[in-house]
Each structure stands twice: as structure tokens, then as C-alpha cells.
């Protein structure tokens, strides 16, 4: 029996490989995402490992620059004498004071930022002490270390992206001194060389101190290399003993695991995200395999009946089909595993091309990925093949004698009824979420939508029937008898058509939901930003990093500028509390004119000697605060006591903190040399002032000038990018479904070989035959697309109405875009038909008729 199974498998290898393709894609996605997140993690491991000393000294509230976004200016610093004192401690081989900033951005030859938006530009002093566990720390790749103050070492990826070679002058945007020019004397990086998108700039100590902290001869952290054989923890304890208050000494291993935990949280999100898409791909794969095996079993009815006639028992037949499925699953999973490995390489290559160097890491196969790939591939295939296998086992021996080369008409069974039930339950859950005051409406929605989708998959054959017959009427009108034949072909196996269309339906449901969410989000946010925006221009950083406050004065001096309001932001702590509190520094006038802040009560007006503060209503509720209460704000720089004089409820385009204080108060607890944004008012003619403002801003490449519309567009565009990534992933799901249509259509055409031959014999031309198959594919694709868009619109509208209090308060249904989706799906149908149609057209009419 096994021999017969293998033989029949080999005879059908092409068809089975087609169906294995869906498994390959699903598994590749699972495997690729697992391998890539693993790769990212090891890349970050190396990044972190090479960038930490055996023991690291930093201010208590600090952390590692570049990971926590701490502004080093606001932390207490160590003097060179204190660093020298640490070097004297037992077990310390070397102690290197560190000066560093995340706001030093290299510029390309046209003075544009070379860094990626949002990625830090890490400028620091050069030293080559070894990293934790004796690893190489900072190292020169090419050239030499900086020796003079006008010399610079860049990381190789950034240097290459800027087209710089050693000896070139490189212009650098510094946080305090605008643009400075340096001679590139070498390229260098940390440890293994991974920068994860950041830029590294190494300077001499004095130069780093000059550009990062205005020339103060201090260090914000110390990198300690222990002597051979010394125990890192002992050394850390010894160092701790000599440190002034407010500093801690931590071992590199300790620090690395803390950072690792933070990274894992972030990577876990990426993982979930990719696995959701893998799940969609596999759901589609299940439907495709179910289809393929159903067709194969039907085609082999005579062969199976013959096996039954010569004495195979039902369990043998079932086992034979399941073994076929197992082998298909194995092959698919193996290919998917390899494809996933390739996918991880491909993502790596794409990242390299765009300049994100993850260092010399390569994707390595993990046992988790292997187990997951085979497990998923095989289980999915077996589940999908079980139904056809049982159907095959029910074949009666007598069918061997009857010509049954075709799938007989299908019985609908109970599944569509179950599907309709699920649709009703799902819709009810969604309706409850939207209209009834149920607790956790998002959970109701989260349960209702999948139920609706699964129900729709099961009930597609019933729900889709009117659509198919409508398509038939239209095609009959347009294409005559050929259009009708296409519709009848699509309708003859409703379950098969439904399963094929369902794959596309799932993809399009998601795409439509995302489209509605995207349109609603951008419209809501755009509207609110436009409504809340004050002033004629906003000057804001492109990389979310605060910028030089001197720009405010320069902007004020520009002809035609009436006033400039500066907004500062940082974070502080409440006494005895750990979590940071966002604070904003602004003048009362700036707050009133420069923002649309919704003040519920009071104002930021000074009341006697007390320092006024406006707090957010949420913050007030959390900490049980009210007007007239005193509040202590603490930071490493100092403490300020404020009097709560107002309560606000947000409502501004610029992000405002939980606590808003005056610039005078802000100066006590944070750094006023850096601002987070400037709002510019002109004398009434914005265009007259624009030129002068642009001139002033040009000195600060990390800062952008935007009028109200530009500012809104820029913010909305950021959402566009996020949605673009989601679209790209969903496109993959849709590609899989198109392959599903190709597969089913190819199998159906093969199954109908004789019928096609007959049609050709009685006068169907090749063109008509091609048209017939294409129209059938278009019907299936359009059916899936229309159902998908309908469910997507329902789900999207429900989601938007649920997210109303999250700021997405405007429901936009992008009708044209949805129509384009349906048209694109129809075009996909046309494309899917190319292969099967060519096959059908090429087949020999005579042989097709003669085929038994």
C-alpha cells in the first residue's frame, strides 16, 4: 500500500508541488520571522556587548546613551580627578572617562542629515579600552584614531553612505555649535561592528567635551577595563566605594542583561507582528491544501475505487491520502525552512542596501525554527488533507466501473450553515462592542471580527452564490456564451470556488480594514493638528532630539518675525517615585498663543512668589492633586517646588507634558540650552519671513522649518510609513492567495481536460478558451475581493468607532481606494489565469477527447 501511495504521489508531483507552494510560503514566513528576530537579537547582543566596559560608572538616573534617550547634560558629571581616582582602584586596569551625545549628526555633501530619521547620531570621545569579558571595544577599521581636535572617525557604514573617504572634510551638525567641519582620519566602530542604524562619530576628548557640553572638562560616565583575573563584581564594588553620591558602578554583564530585557520587549512586538502574518499565510495555505487534495482525490476516484475493489480497506485508503499529505507537508516545510532562511538573508541584504549595518551577523538556523517549521508545515497539511482523505475512504468499489473522472456535483453540507451562524454571532459581538456599553469593547471586537471572518470563509459558497450569478449575467452580456460558460464553471464546484475565493477574501479584509484605519487616522490626526496648530511656522527636530536654543534668538532676529515661543521638554521625578514625569517648559504667553491647550481651570500665571505649574487632568487624577497644592519636582540637576495653578486637558498639536512650568522653573531642574520646538509668529506675511527663517535653520541640519500645512503633512506622513509596512506584509498574503487561484484553476482545468477538448472540437477557438478560463479566475478573484472589502469595511468602521476616544474620531471610508483593491484583485485573477489558460490552449484537442 505504501508503495502504491508513493508511486501515485510521484505521478502527481507537479500538482502536489503546486499545493506544497502554499505551505512553503507560510512556513517561510514563520521561519523567516523567527530567524530574523533571532538575528536582530544577536546583532544587538554584539552591539551591547562591544559597547560596555567590564565595569561601567554612570549617574544613578542614567543608563546607556542611545537606549534610554537620556540627555547627558542633565546628569551630574565626574571630574578628571575623580576618573583618575577610579583608575587607582584595585583590579582596575584602565578607566576611561566618557563624553557622549546622541545628537551629533554627520552631514552628507549637501548638508543633509546622513542618519536615518529617528536614529541617534552618537558622538563621543575616542578610547580603545577593552569591552566586557576582554572583547574588543572601540576599534579602528581603517586609517587611525583622531589625534587633533579637527579630526574625526566615522563608522564605516555611515562613511560609505556619505561617500566619504579618509582625508575628506566631513561637516557635522553638533548640538551646541551648529555645523562644524572635521577631517576624516579613519573609520571605526564598536566590537563586532553592528550599529543597528545609528551613526558613530569619534572625536578627541577635548573636542567631544567642546561640542557636547560646551567645553566643560568633565565626564558623564566611566568605562573601566579590569586587570586580568580580577572579578568584575569585586571591582565594581571597589569602584562604587570611591564614587561620589549619585553614581553607580555596574558590571557590563549586569548592564547588558538589563538592556537585553528592554530590547526583548521591543523584539517581542516585532515577532508577534510577523507571526500574525505567518498565521494568515498558514490559514490561506490550509484552504489551498484542502482544495488541492479534494480535487486530487476526486480525480483519482476510479483509481481509489479500483484499490477498494481489489481489497484495500477504508483505513488504508485514508492512510494513503494522509501519507501523501505528510510527504507534501514534509517537502513544503523543508522548502519553507530554506526559503525562510533565505528570507532572513534577504531582509539583512535589504537593510544593508539602505545602510543599516547589523554587523557581521549571519542568520543561523535555530532548532526552534526547524521544529516550528516542520511542526506547522506537517500539522497544517494533515489537518487540511483529513477531510478529503475521509471522503476518499468512503469511495465505493463499484465506482471503479463507472466513469467518474470528474468531481461530481458537490453537496453543500452543514458547514455553510455553521458559517452563517458564526457570522451572526461575530456581527452581534461587533455590534455590541460598538453600540452597547459593554466592558472592554475592544475585546468584543477582537473576538467578533475573527468569528465573522471564519464564518464568512465557511459560508462563502452560500453568501457568494448571488455574486457569482450576478457576475455571470454581466459576463454573458459582455462576452456571450463564453462568459456564461465561465460563470457556470465557477459555480459548478461552489465549495472549491469558495475556498479559493476565501483566501483572497482574508487578505482583502485585512487590507480594507487597514485602509479604513489609515484613512481615518490620518484624516483625524490631520484635522486635529490643523485645528490645534498655532503660529505661522513650527521649527522642530527631524530626529525627535532637542536642539540648540540659540536658534530661538536667531529666529526672533529674522525680519518679519513678530515673536518666537520656545517649548522645552524633559523628564523629572516626584519625590520617592520612580516613574518619570514629562515636563514642558513654556511661558504663559507662549502657552496661550503658541498652543491650543485646553485649560480646564486656572493658568500658568505667577501667583506671588510661588512657581506656577499647569498639570494634566490625568496626572492630577493619578496623583490625587488639585489646584493650590504644592508639588516637588526632582532631577539630577536640582529640585523645584511648584504651585499647581492650572489643569489642562491636552488638545494641542505639539506634545505637552504632564506638568507645564515656566522657563525659569524649568531652568532649575533641566537644561534650557536645548529646546524641543519653536512656534514662530510673523507680522502677518509668513512668506516674507520664510526666507530669513530658512537661512537661520540651515545652520541646524537636524531641525526643520515647516508652515502649518507642511507640519501637518509631515506628521501624517509618519503614519503613512507605518501603514506602508503593513500593506507590504499584507501584499504577501495576497500573493499567496493569487497563487492559490492559479493552483485551483490549473487543477480544475486539468480535471476538465476532456470537456475542454470537447469545447474545442465543437468550435471554441483558442482565444475563446483563454477568455473563458480568464473570466472564471476573474469571477473567483472578484468574489473574494468583494466579500473581503465588505467585511473589511464593517470591521474597519467598527474599529474606528471604537478608537474614537484614542483620537481617531473621524471615520473615512476610502471608496476609491477600496474600488481599486477590487479592480486589482480582478487583474490578479487575469494574471492567475495566464498559466492554466496557456496549458489548456496548448493541449491537443484530440488527445483531450481521447483521454480516459
Amino acid at each position, binding site marked *: 500500500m505504501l508503495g502504491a501511495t508513493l508511486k501515485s504521489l510521484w505521478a502527481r508531483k507537479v500538482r502536489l508541488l503546486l499545493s506544497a507552494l502554499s505551505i512553503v510560503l507560510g512556513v517561510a514566513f514563520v521561519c523567516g520571522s523567527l530567524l530574523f528576530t533571532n538575528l536582530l537579537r544577536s546583532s544587538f547582543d554584539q552591539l551591547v556587548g562591544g559597547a560596555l566596559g567590564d565595569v561601567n560608572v554612570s549617574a544613578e538616573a542614567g543608563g546607556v546613551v542611545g537606549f534610554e534617550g537620556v540627555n547627558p547634560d542633565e546628569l551630574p558629571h565626574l571630574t578628571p580627578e575623580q576618573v583618575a581616582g577610579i583608575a587607582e582602584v584595585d583590579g582596575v586596569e584602565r578607566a576611561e572617562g566618557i563624553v557622549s551625545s546622541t545628537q551629533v549628526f554627520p552631514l552628507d555633501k549637501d548638508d543633509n542629515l546622513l542618519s536615518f530619521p529617528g536614529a541617534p547620531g552618537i558622538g563621543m570621545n575616542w578610547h580603545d579600552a577593552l569591552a566586557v569579558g576582554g572583547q574588543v571595544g572601540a576599534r579602528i577599521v581603517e586609517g587611525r584614531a583622531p589625534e587633533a581636535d579637527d579630526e574625526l572617525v566615522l563608522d564605516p557604514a555611515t562613511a560609505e553612505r556619505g561617500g566619504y573617504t579618509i582625508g575628506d572634510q566631513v561637516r557635522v551638525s553638533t548640538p551646541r555649535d551648529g555645523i562644524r567641519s572635521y577631517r576624516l582620519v579613519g573609520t571605526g566602530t564598536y566590537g563586532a561592528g553592528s550599529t543597528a542604524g545609528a551613526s558613530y562619530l569619534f572625536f578627541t576628548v577635548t573636542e567631544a567635551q567642546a561640542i557636547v557640553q560646551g567645553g566643560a572638562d568633565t565626564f558623564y560616565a566611566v568605562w573601566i577595563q579590569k586587570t586580568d583575573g580580577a572579578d568584575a563584581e569585586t571591582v565594581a564594588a571597589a569602584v562604587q566605594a570611591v564614587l561620589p553620591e549619585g553614581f553607580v558602578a555596574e558590571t557590563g554583564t549586569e548592564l547588558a542583561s538589563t538592556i537585553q530585557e528592554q530590547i526583548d520587549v521591543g523584539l517581542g512586538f516585532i515577532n508577534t507582528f510577523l507571526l500574525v502574518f505567518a498565521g494568515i499565510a498558514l490559514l490561506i495555505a490550509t484552504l489551498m491544501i484542502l482544495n488541492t487534495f479534494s480535487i486530487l482525490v476526486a480525480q483519482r476516484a476510479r483509481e481509489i475505487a479500483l484499490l477498494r475493489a481489489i481489497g484495500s480497506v477504508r483505513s488504508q485508503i485514508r492512510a494513503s491520502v494522509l501519507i501523501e499529505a505528510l510527504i507534501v507537508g514534509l517537502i513544503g516545510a523543508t522548502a519553507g525552512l530554506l526559503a525562510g532562511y533565505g528570507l532572513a538573508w534577504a531582509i539583512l541584504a535589504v537593510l544593508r542596501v539602505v545602510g543599516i549595518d547589523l554587523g557581521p551577523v549571519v542568520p543561523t538556523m535555530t532548532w526552534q525554527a526547524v521544529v516550528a517549521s516542520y511542526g506547522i508545515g506537517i500539522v497544517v497539511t494533515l489537518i487540511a488533507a483529513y477531510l478529503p482523505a475521509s471522503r476518499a475512504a468512503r469511495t465505493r468499489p463499484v465506482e471503479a466501473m463507472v466513469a467518474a473522472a470528474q468531481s461530481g456535483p458537490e453537496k453543500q453540507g452543514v458547514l455553510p450553515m455553521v458559517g452563517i451562524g458564526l457570522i451572526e454571532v461575530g456581527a452581534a459581538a461587533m455590534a455590541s462592542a460598538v453600540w452597547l456599553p459593554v466592558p472592554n469593547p475592544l475585546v468584543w471586537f477582537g473576538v467578533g471580527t475573527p468569528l465573522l471572518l471564519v464564518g464568512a470563509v465557511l459560508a462563502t459558497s452560500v453568501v457568494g452564490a448571488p455574486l457569482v450569478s450576478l457576475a455571470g449575467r454581466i459576463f454573458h452580456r459582455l462576452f456571450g456564451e463564453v462568459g456564461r460558460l465561465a460563470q457556470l464553471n465557477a459555480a459548478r464546484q461552489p465549495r472549491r470556488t469558495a475556498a479559493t475565493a476565501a483566501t483572497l477574501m482574508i487578505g482583502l479584509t485585512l487590507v480594507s480594514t487597514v485602509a479604513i484605519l489609515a484613512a481615518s487616522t490620518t484624516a483625524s490626526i490631520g484635522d486635529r493638528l490643523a485645528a490645534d496648530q498655532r503660529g505661522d511656522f513650527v521649527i522642530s527636530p527631524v530626529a525627535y532630539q532637542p536642539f540648540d536654543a540659540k536658534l530661538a534668538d536667531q529666529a526672533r532676529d529674522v525680519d518679519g518675525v513678530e515673536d518666537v515661543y520656545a517649548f522645552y521638554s524633559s523628564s523629572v521625578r516626584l519625590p520617592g517615585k520612580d516613574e518619570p514625569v514629562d515636563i514642558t517648559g513654556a511661558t504663559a504667553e507662549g502657552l496661550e498663543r503658541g498652543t491650543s491647550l485646553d485649560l480646564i481651570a486656572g493658568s500658568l500665571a505667577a501667583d506671588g512668589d510661588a512657581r506656577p505649574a499647569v498639570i494634566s487632568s490625568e496626572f492630577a487624577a493619578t496623583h490625587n492633586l488639585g489646584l493650590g497644592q504644592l508639588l516637588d519636582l526632582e532631577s539630577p540637576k536640582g529640585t523645584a517646588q511648584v504651585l499647581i495653578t492650572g489643569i489642562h486637558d491636552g488638545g494641542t498639536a505639539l506634545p505637552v507634558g504632564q506638568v507645564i512650568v515656566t522657563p525659569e522653573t524649568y531652568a532649575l531642574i533641566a537644561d534650557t540650552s536645548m529646546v524641543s520646538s519653536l512656534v514662530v509668529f510673523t507680522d502677518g506675511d509668513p512668506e516674507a519671513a520664510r526666507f530669513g527663517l530658512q537661512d537661520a535653520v540651515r545652520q541646524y541640519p537636524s531641525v526643520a522649518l515647516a508652515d502649518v500645512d507642511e507640519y501637518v503633512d509631515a506628521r501624517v506622513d509618519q503614519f503613512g510609513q507605518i501603514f506602508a509596512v503593513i500593506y507590504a506584509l499584507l501584499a504577501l498574503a495576497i500573493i499567496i492567495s493569487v497563487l492559490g487561484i492559479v493552483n485551483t484553476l490549473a487543477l480544475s482545468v486539468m480535471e476538465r481536460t476532456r*470537456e475542454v477538448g*470537447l469545447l474545442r472540437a465543437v*468550435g*471554441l477557438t483558442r482565444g475563446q478558451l483563454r477568455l473563458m478560463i480568464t473570466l472564471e479566475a476573474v469571477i473567483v478573484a472578484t468574489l473574494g475581493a468583494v466579500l473581503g472589502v465588505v467585511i473589511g469595511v464593517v470591521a474597519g468602521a467598527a474599529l474606528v468607532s471604537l478608537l474614537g476616544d484614542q483620537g481617531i474620531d473621524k471615520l473615512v471610508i476610502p471608496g476609491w481606494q477600496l474600488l481599486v483593491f477590487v479592480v486589482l484583485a480582478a487583474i490578479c485573477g487575469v494574471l492567475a489565469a495566464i498559466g492554466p489558460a496557456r496549458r489548456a490552449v496548448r493541449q491537443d484537442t*484530440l488527445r483531450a*477527447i481521447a483521454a480516459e
Partner: protein
Amino acid sequence: MSIAARAKGLTKIYGSDSASVTALEDVDFDVTSGEFTAIMGPSGSGKSTLMHLLAALDTPTAGEVWIGDTAVNNLADTPLTVLRRDRIGFIFQAFNLVPTLNARENIVLPVTIAGRKVDVEWFDKIIDVLGLADRLTHKPAELSGGQQQRVACARALMNRPDIVFGDEPTGNLDSRSAAEVLGFLRRSVDEFGQTVVMVTHDAHAASYADRVVFLSDGHIVDDIRGADQTDLLREVARIYPRTDGDTGPGRPSAEAVYRDGSAAPTSRGVPADDESDVERSGARHAARG
């Protein structure tokens, strides 16, 4: 009498080199208009190949085929398809009907795919003759084998083709249904002047024809007109004798029973027969009821 289809020097070789099989070798053959021709022969004799070539379903290795005045050999696929659609009708042994279409739709299929209007009068006439009036809305799966073949016959005639080709049209049918189908083909020749060419290995079926052509090993070995079933059976036994030498109990030798008593020729011209075709077929019909 005009020629409906003509084959000249027709040769068909399947495969190549050592594995090649010659199915037909230098066959000349004319199909006369308004005549019912049967092509007989055992499996492998080349009878189906001859019909497929004549019907432009296959291309010959050598030789030429004309349908009426049209040389088929050099036609591209589309004109060839149009020629099949408009000038040839087909009845196959099985699987004659498109399962998604009902009987009526199957019958008018060649007309509708050509985008033409159905000739209702002609349609009604065929339906009436075939007794299909109450089966028109049935799907093929709801029809018996005989009904399916009658629908196929109706379809084959719907376009008033120059020739109807039947490839073992009764091969899958019980004797009653077979008789109905053969009777209809006979009537289509007699009443509508239709030209019919039918491949069969069944002497009973062939006995409905005006002319029977015998094929053996890729050659036409005999060509007779007006033979009845007994004649044909005898002819079969003569042309294709059993190789073990047993000619069956009490059966006269093939040579002895040849119809006009002459020494068995391998082929003959049109026999001098004073009985008209119509009279003869009418007689046969009367004989069978």
C-alpha cells in the same frame, strides 16, 4: 455525386524512430455527400486515426485532407476551429456534453459560441425527430446514456454541418439506445440529406450505413455498399480471421460466402447496385421496426 471530404495519400506515424507506429499508410479516401459511411476495423486498424484526420482533429504525417473544397492541412488554429464549428458535427463515444449546460444549451452550443442566432425552426425539427422535447432543461447528469447521445446527435446537426463524424457513437450504449441513435443518423441522411461518417467495430452499427470501409493495419482493405448485417459479419470474419485457425463451428469459409461469389478482392469500386439507397434503407427500417 459531390465529395464532402477527401483524403489523398494520407499517412500517420505516431512516435519516432524505433518506437514509431504507422497507423495509416498512403490512404486515399473520399466521403460522398449525402451518404452514410461507416469505417470498420478492429482496434489498431487505423479507423479512428482516419476519422480524426478527416475531421481535422489531428494533423497527418503526410498526405492531404479536404473538407469540401477547403484544404485543411495549412489552416491555422482559428480558421480550423471555425471550420470545425461551422462545417463539421461531432458525436463521440462518451463525454459528449458540457456538464454545466442543460440539454438545450448543449445542443445550441456551436451556434452560441459562434455568437449567432439559433435557427428555432431547425432546432424544433431536430428535437422533434430525436424525441428530446421534454428533456431540454435537464443537465447531462440527469439524462440516460441514450438520451445523452441523442442530445449529442442534435448538437452535431445544429449547425447544418457538411459532415457529421461519429466516433463509436453507440459504443457505450445498450442495444435499444444504440438502435435509436443509429436510426436517427440514418434518418438524418435520408430526410435531411446529411453526410455522416461513423467509426465502429460493430457490424450491427455498420449495417445502418450505405457504404462500409474496412481498415486493417493502416490500409483500406475493403469498401462495400449496401451490405446487411450478415454480409458484414461474414466480411469481418474473412478480413480479420482468427489466427488460431478456428473459424467457428459450422461457419462457412470466408472466401465461400463473399457476397457476389467472386474471389475476395482487397477493395472494390462502387458496386453495381440497382437498388436505390433510399429504398434499401427504407427496407431495413421496415425489417427492424
